[in-house]
């Protein structure tokens, strides 16, 4: 956090207003690379998915992957962009992990322009462009200082070279680190929903750079910005922006100037450090890539792609919230809804609710238990899941037992009733539960007196004892109800 400065909703901090724009690179999950038929895969042995084209061997030529164009269009359409005839350019600079020593990218004629993204807090961030480009290889610097200038030697893996990317550039509409995180997270949800990318920041399939500047609150002129790189998680995105705002405000309040530069986020030390300033910036010598022809998606293709898009996260969240009636849902339910949609499990909730399961119950089970195993949950047999929810709803299984059965259902599949039977799981009937509760009270008279006298936290003490005594067969809510009944 930034030195305890008071923050307002707008992100204003001590008389300064942060202005933030994000550049998000996402890898498209096409089967093959952008300009050749090499496999687009993460984690394969180094330099196994390479060919003359993605190695940039002399004489090789690129051929555009139409599926990548389609994915880029999906992203553009999901972000309400206009799709335009686009041209690839060459961005020229030397770097060992770039086989041709230029990157094929889109420059002044990107495929997607002028869209917007609405965040769950109802704020809207405008999208400047979402263009296509090729990824570079990956360099590992070995020995020495571990950076390109001081390593003993470097190894390059070109598997990633030529992997299709879409770079989504926002307008500087973001005003706080929280909003930046929200934007990145919402964007990730959209990328996943389009099927164009898996949006994994840890694996680098989604990479976020932040442009940060500050200006006196209430003014409109933009301050000098710094671009922050190496943000590998939502958490580091938030931390780096906080740090950078504080650093820039510190400079300005001390009468210094912010220098326009690219800065590297050091996760361990929690600081940004200068990489290069504007004066040292590369002259990329962009010019139209003569080996490719312009991409001109016609109206028919555009509407075909638009029709292939499913609902986006915001719409899906609204649909889940509607299960709870017309009034806005509370914070807890909203969080559960967000989790369920983020993991693509909303289908389970709507199906179960449609089959008569209480929406709150199925939402909780899905957000808390199923979402912990999202891959398995997306594959689970929906009918079996609904059957399990019904068993819990009808009191045939306690909450704890339901979770146990759900765990096995996710892992191995099967019939929930059969799983419960095999594991000897059935909820205690009310009579048996009363007996166990009575025995527990009898065994702890002192605690019971204190509970009767109003020490509410002892509810947990008794519930815990009953749960242990019944090996989880008791339903927590039923135990609580019985304790309150006995207290009178």
């Amino acid at each position: 956090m930034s030195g305890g400065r008071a923050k307002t909703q707008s992100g204003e901090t001590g008389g300064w207003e942060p202005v933030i724009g994000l550049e998000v690179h996402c890898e498209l999950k096409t089967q093959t690379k952008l300009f050749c038929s090499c496999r687009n895969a993460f984690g394969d042995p180094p330099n196994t998915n390479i060919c003359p084209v993605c190695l940039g061997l002399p004489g090789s030529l690129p051929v555009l992957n139409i599926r990548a164009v389609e994915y880029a269009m999906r992203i553009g359409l999901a972000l309400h962009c206009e799709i335009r005839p686009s041209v690839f350019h060459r961005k020229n600079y030397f770097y060992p992990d770039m086989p041709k020593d230029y990157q094929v990218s889109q420059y002044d004629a990107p495929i997607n322009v002028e869209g917007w993204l609405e965040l769950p807090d109802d704020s809207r961030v405008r999208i400047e462009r979402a263009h296509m480009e090729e990824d570079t290889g990956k360099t590992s610097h070995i020995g020495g200082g571990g950076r390109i200038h001081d390593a003993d030697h470097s190894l390059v893996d070109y598997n990633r070279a030529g992997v299709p990317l879409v770079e989504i550039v926002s307008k500087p509409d973001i005003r706080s680190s929280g909003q930046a995180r929200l934007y990145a997270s919402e964007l990730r949800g959209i990328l996943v929903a389009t099927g164009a990318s898996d949006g994994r920041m840890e694996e680098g399939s989604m990479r976020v750079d932040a442009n940060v500047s500050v200006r006196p609150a209430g003014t409109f002129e933009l301050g000098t910005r710094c671009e922050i790189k190496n943000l590998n998680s939502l958490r580091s995105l938030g931390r780096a922006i906080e740090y950078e705002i504080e650093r820039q405000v510190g400079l300005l309040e001390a009468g210094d100037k912010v220098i326009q530069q690219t800065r590297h986020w050091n996760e361990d030390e929690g600081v940004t450090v200068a990489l290069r300033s504007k004066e040292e910036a590369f002259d990329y010598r962009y010019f139209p890539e003569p080996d490719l022809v312009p991409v001109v998606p016609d109206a028919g293709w555009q509407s075909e792609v638009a029709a292939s898009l499913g609902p986006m996260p915001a719409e899906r969240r609204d649909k889940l919230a509607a299960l709870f009636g017309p009034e806005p849902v509370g914070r807890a339910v909203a969080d559960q809804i967000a989790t369920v949609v983020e993991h693509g499990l909303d289908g389970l909730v709507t199906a179960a609710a449609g089959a008569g399961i209480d929406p709150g119950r199925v939402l909780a089970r899905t957000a808390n238990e199923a979402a912990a195993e999202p891959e398995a949950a997306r594959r689970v047999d929906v009918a079996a899941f609904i059957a399990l929810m019904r068993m819990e709803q009808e009191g045939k299984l306690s909450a704890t037992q339901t979770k146990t059965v759900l765990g096995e259902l996710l892992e191995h599949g099967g019939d929930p009733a059969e799983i419960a039977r095999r594991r000897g799981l059935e909820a205690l009937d009310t009579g048996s539960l009363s007996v166990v509760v009575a025995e527990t009270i009898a065994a702890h008279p002192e605690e019971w007196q204190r509970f009767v006298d109003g020490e509410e936290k002892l509810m947990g003490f008794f519930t815990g004892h009953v749960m242990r005594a019944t090996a989880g067969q008791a339903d927590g809510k039923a135990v609580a109800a019985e304790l309150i009944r006995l207290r009178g």
Partner: protein
Amino acid sequence: MTGLGGPGAPGAPSGRPGPALDIARAVRAGSVSALETVERYLGAIEEVDGELHAFVSVLHESARREAGAVDAKVAGGDDPGPLAGVPVAVKDNMCTRGIPTTCSSRILEGWCPPYDATVVQRLRAAGAIVIGKTNLDEFAMGSSTENSAFGVTRNPHDPGRVPGGSSGGSAVAVAAGMAPLALGSDTGGSIRQPAALCGVVGMKPTYGTVSRYGLVAFASSLDQIGPLTTTVTESAVVFDVIGGQDPLDSTCLERPVPRTVTALDEGVEGLRVGVVRELVEGVDAGVGGAVAAAAEALAGAGANVEEVSVPELRHGLPAYYIVAPAEASSNLSRYDGVRYGLRVEADTAEAMNAATRAAGFGPEVKRRILLGTYALSAGYYEAYYGQAQKVRTLIIDALAAAYQRFDVLVGATTPTTAFAIGAKVDDPWAMYLSDVCTVPSNLAGHPAISIPFGSDGSGLPIGVQVLAPALGEPVMFQVAAVVESEAPVLAPPRVHAP
């Protein structure tokens, strides 16, 4: 169109068949084996290339192996293809699998591509045999084949003179009888200019009709592969073999490439021929005289010949020398010592890049990289590259207007005949002027062909150029065949295989 499929193909086309088609006919008929043919040409190379240095590598083993495969096909009764058993010399900027492809540069010395260029595949599929790789100006940058890291190639008509360039090795291989046909690449005249200076036929196809896959790029928007041959007929046959869409080259035209061999004997009766003032003014008297004689011959054969002025062509050379180096500066970035070719070790990656490029590139390549880098730099882009692209559009429009009135245009291929070795190496601008008549076709993406048309007072060959609009190859060959048939007989080169 019947193309090459007709009876007796490839002998079907009329006009002078030439050595390549003679060989193909004999090999197909079984009267000569491909292996005998290969041995004969390997002998010819052995005989004269010591003096001329057209080849940077001669492929004894693989050529014999390929010849064996052709002979087996003939023996087995299979169709060995229209170029059965024809040895072909390939400019050393086209990739040949497992065979060094150097671009006559130290930076690629010893580099063996893991794949064949599309044109090489297509030639082999047609029965041709790659007999060697020919010398060029480094990365095709030059007009004399003097800018080769592996030595100068000499003109067989006068070994004290240059063969032209950059496809000088290919032109000399054909002119001196070391190969019946050759492939070159033409970015600003690199096929037509050496063809003219060596007395052979050199043709640059419409941009996008011949795949560039496997051609090591000089200037991608201008480069095009084409044949160097003894006759116009052979040129048309090779164009028909190597042309056509290639899924590996996105700039290949999607429409079918017109077949040309069937157009050769149609004559020029009623065709409208424009003699372009800008392609004859200022050229040597001998060259100008040859163009005039060719025009007269066309008129005599029934064409309507008129003079035409296309003043925009005068801007071609400066525009070319912006666009080509700009693209080259980017295309040649990849020679950085990281993945293949030369590496000069240094303390850091950046220093290694710089040291490798400093040692690996020759002075002309460096000059063009510098020119191109400058032309693309922030603040200069519009004034140079942007402006050059506008000139390009201007030239395309001006030629389009000319083709409203004419079916083809004719002019000189080169302002002079072959010049002495060393005469222009210290004066780049004088050297660049060698391309003044040829660059417009590259800037416009149009086809053009140089046909030998007699010689100057010193017995040096002269080329006459026929230009056509995009995809105008059939009419271009049609006119070229008449020019060829009317051309004065050229004395055989002083240095020639027996």
